[in-house]
């Protein structure tokens, strides 16, 4: 990421600096994607939200009043576009080719790979059961690169002091969601699959 202050990067990007624009995308593409996906949108719909959000930034770039608060602007735009798309109805056209999930070389051992897969799926399943507000908050806070507290506060429309306690409540909720439907330990599930 560019070391210039974020506001300057936004102004440079608005003024035609391609490197500044790409730096903004590299920094915030995950945030925009996360906001769209935490609304429960499919990949194709989330791709539409993402592209519409960046196109809107392109056309509004010179009119952004507080360029240093660009994270909040992008998140609000992505949230509004997500709502439009949810109301509009779903799109079934697949977007591009899904990247293959990369496997760590060290986990080439089949049993441990299956075990890890089971744990991932369990965590994703629990995450999907969370209320949208918690999904968005955890998405935003665990995005890479991680947002600053000030950015998270703008994006989540929440005072900085509330972020920590809300995160703790959402993680507690995540633990509860994971305890519910499948009582088997992940190891047991992996073993069952291997021996079956």
């Amino acid at each position, binding site marked *: 990421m560019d070391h210039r202050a974020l506001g300057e990067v936004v102004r440079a*990007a*608005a003024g*035609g600096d391609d490197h500044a*624009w*790409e730096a903004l*995308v590299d920094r915030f*593409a*995950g945030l925009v*994607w*996360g906001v769209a996906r935490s609304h429960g949108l499919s990949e194709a719909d*989330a791709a*539409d*939200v*993402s*592209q*519409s959000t*960046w*196109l*809107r930034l*392109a*056309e*509004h*770039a*010179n*009119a952004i009043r507080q360029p240093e608060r660009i994270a909040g602007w992008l998140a609000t735009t992505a949230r509004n*576009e997500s709502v*439009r*798309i949810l*109301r*509009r*109805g779903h*799109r079934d*056209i697949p*977007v*591009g080719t*899904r*990247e293959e*999930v*990369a496997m760590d070389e060290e986990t080439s051992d089949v049993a441990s790979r299956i075990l890890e897969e089971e*744990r*991932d799926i*369990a*965590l*994703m399943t629990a*995450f999907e059961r969370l209320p949208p507000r918690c999904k968005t908050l*955890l*998405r935003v*806070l*665990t*995005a*890479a690169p991680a947002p600053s507290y000030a950015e998270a506060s703008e994006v989540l429309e929440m005072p900085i002091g509330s972020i920590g306690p809300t*995160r*703790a409540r959402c*993680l507690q909720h*995540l*633990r509860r969601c*994971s*305890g519910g439907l499948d009582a088997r*330990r*992940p190891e047991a599930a992996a073993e069952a699959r291997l021996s079956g």
Partner: protein
Amino acid sequence: MIPDNEPDDGLAARLGAVLARRDPVPSSVIAAAKASRVWRAVDAELALLLHDSAVESDELAGVRGGGSRLLTFVSPGVTVELEVLGRGRGLIGQVVAKGGTRVELCEPERVVPVEVDRTGHFSSTDAPAGPMSVRVTDERSGAVTQTEWVAI
């Protein structure tokens, strides 16, 4: 499933890693975001989205029915009304402006001119799902108005 003694920071880090592994931003989405920069600083008056039937209350949307979506964009000199007829069924629209106009339908990677009749009506049967914007050029002054992008 989640160990009771797994601390918040550890759980959050694991969740972040799982989301990054299982739901990464597709490279095509990043490429599209980067390509959007060509639409910066277009020398045009922006027509803002004033009304979108997709975000009306469900009750009103239900009354309208039929699956078409009405959008209204407004700038100081130009109003654009769009009716999106539903997935893959194209759109019809009307430009309200002083004098004659040329109309183009903009997609992120192409610009398609459409015919406008004397009352400002235009239509397209070829408007793919995805972000689009309408560009209106005043035939006499050459002044350009472009609507906000919206995913149809």
